[in-house]
């Protein structure tokens, strides 16, 4: 696939369809693949990577990139297309300036899960019939593929591309039984005390590195409220349990109805806080209370929080009525 | 004493007599009106005044059929029948104040009297 992508990118560059390409390149290690913009065929040839570790969502970069001179080619996985579409809806990306090629998605691999098995010095990975053959500086190791799947790919909601100019590989479909709300439901069934303890344990790990915010395609404000001294809630370091809670509640609230559940927040969290659960809680609530809604699915529908149903909307007391206890 | 009694009547009936606006619809609607010395609206008013002893001593408390017409039609939801009932209960709860004793029964019996009526009367008029 990587080969085909490189060839197609060079073709489109050569015929003048695009002037730049956003994709990925290798970082320090084989498994830290980072988004990158390529401006020449040579750069593409030497650095372009798309492999099992290529999980990053490049949609957010297109806010800036689509406003630059010339057209840019973007390779988008199914989950990335939802983010892309949502940003189109919010008038953040200039659609005409992006040429989208839909590429197959995951499941992608989580290097942390490899390391957890004691596999270090990773040089590369081959996936053969569900078994990973990992080439390391200490020789080859193997492990079952399903044990190394990246968290955000475990409950994939859709392998369908909601927007593209051309498609590489086969088109997938929306996965209705992804089970992505199972963990949320599990938490909902705990007692409030248990939930409180769970989240204290998780959120107290937060170091306020802002990685979740910076990677999130929905958190794309020109100026984040937490960086704005006039907002009244700006803060840099979380010095108190309140601030840990506050930051994540407000962040989840600001992206509610806009979050496409791409899972990048949890992927990049250096403290492994399952932040996506907060977003999924909102998505689950919205689906249950206001009808099924998938952000990014289209570019015209009204988001659930900027919409209402005068007669059918529930009262907030529903929160008090349902749930454990 | 009467104040305690008033409290008791108010509590056991669950009626707020202050809601009465003195329209008299209860008495206007009461099928036992002519049998009664004190009428439904008077029950409400006299309980409000605390004038309860007179009600307890009156035969009126046994004349109420508990048909609830007054309850149904009261525009203010005062429920006079419940007041009557509460006064009656206060009366028969006192020692020896049963309104009906088994020895009275044979004299009352006739062909048309349903058995159920006797059972009901015992429930209503005895402790």
């Amino acid at each position: 696939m990587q080969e085909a992508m490189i060839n197609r990118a060079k073709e489109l560059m050569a015929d003048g369809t695009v002037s730049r390409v956003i994709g990925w390149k290798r970082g320090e290690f084989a498994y830290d693949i980072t988004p990158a913009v390529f401006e020449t065929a040579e750069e593409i040839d030497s650095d372009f990577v798309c492999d099992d570790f290529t999980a990053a969502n490049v949609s957010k970069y297109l806010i800036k990139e689509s406003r630059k001179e010339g057209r840019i080619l973007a390779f988008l996985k199914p989950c990335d297309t939802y983010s892309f579409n949502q940003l189109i809806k919010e008038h953040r990306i200039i659609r005409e300036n992006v040429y989208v090629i839909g590429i197959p998605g995951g499941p992608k691999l989580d290097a942390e899960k490899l390391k957890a098995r004691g596999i270090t010095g990773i040089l590369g990975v081959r996936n053969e019939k569900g078994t990973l053959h990992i080439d390391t500086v200490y020789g080859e190791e193997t492990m079952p593929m399903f044990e190394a799947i990246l968290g955000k790919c475990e409950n994939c909601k859709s392998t369908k591309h909601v927007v593209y100019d051309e498609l590489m590989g086969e088109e997938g479909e929306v996965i209705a039984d992804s089970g992505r709300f199972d963990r949320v439901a599990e938490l909902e069934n705990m007692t409030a005390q248990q939930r409180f303890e769970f989240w204290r344990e998780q959120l107290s790990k937060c170091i306020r590195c802002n990685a979740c915010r910076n990677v999130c395609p929905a958190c794309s404000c020109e100026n984040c409220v937490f960086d704005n001294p006039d907002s009244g809630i700006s803060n840099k370091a979380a010095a108190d349990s309140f601030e840990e809670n506050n930051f994540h509640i407000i962040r989840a609230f600001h992206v509610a109805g806009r979050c496409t559940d791409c899972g990048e927040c949890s992927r990049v969290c250096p403290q492994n806080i399952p932040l996506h659960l907060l977003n999924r809680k909102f998505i689950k609530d919205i689906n249950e209370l206001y009808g099924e809604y998938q952000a990014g699915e289209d570019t015209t529908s009204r988001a659930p929080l900027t919409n209402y149903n005068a007669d059918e909307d529930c009262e907030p007391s529903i929160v008090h009525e349902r749930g454990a206890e | 004493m009467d104040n305690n009694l008033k409290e008791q009547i108010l509590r056991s009936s669950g009626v707020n007599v202050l809601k009465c606006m003195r329209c008299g619809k209860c008495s206007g609607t009461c099928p036992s009106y002519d049998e009664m010395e004190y009428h439904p609206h008077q029950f409400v008013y006299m309980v409000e005044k605390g004038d309860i002893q007179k009600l307890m001593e009156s035969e009126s408390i046994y004349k109420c059929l508990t048909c609830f017409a007054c309850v149904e039609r009261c525009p203010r939801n005062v429920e006079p029948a419940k007041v009557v009932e509460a006064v009656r209960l206060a009366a028969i709860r006192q020692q020896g104040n049963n309104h009906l004793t088994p020895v009275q029964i044979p004299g009352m019996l006739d062909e048309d009297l349903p058995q159920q009526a006797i059972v009901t009367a015992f429930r209503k008029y005895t402790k």
Partner: protein
Amino acid sequence: MQVNDNNFEPVIVAFCCNWCSYAGADLSGTNRLNYPTNVKIIRVPCSCRVNPMFILRAFQRGADGVIICGCHPGDCHYTSGNYYARRRITLLYSMLDFLGIERDRTRLEWVSAAEGAKFAATMESFTEQVKALGPNRRLEDLRCRKQ
């Protein structure tokens, strides 16, 4: 700090929309309907002006309960503000509950300008409810605690 439940006087912040609920609160005053002093009212133009940040801020600074009052659905002065508020507040409450923060510390009520009695009764019952929960500890900023 030892908390004696009988003496616990919660701090309760009430956000009232200018057109219905604030007028309803005024009416309960005009009718001399008593409700606990714990309740302090902040006037906002509409329930849809209440930002979730305000609610969190109140808890941060040591509020023990936050209640939001707006016009009844269909009666919003701005036609639709309370409908948006209803969704936002529902989701916020749900999230607070998800984080294990006592769900009974928060409430949304519809109080019209004519419902002085309802306003007083609502404040009475909400204060009782929050009193029963005890002080807010789960969403408080310890640095803001009174010495």
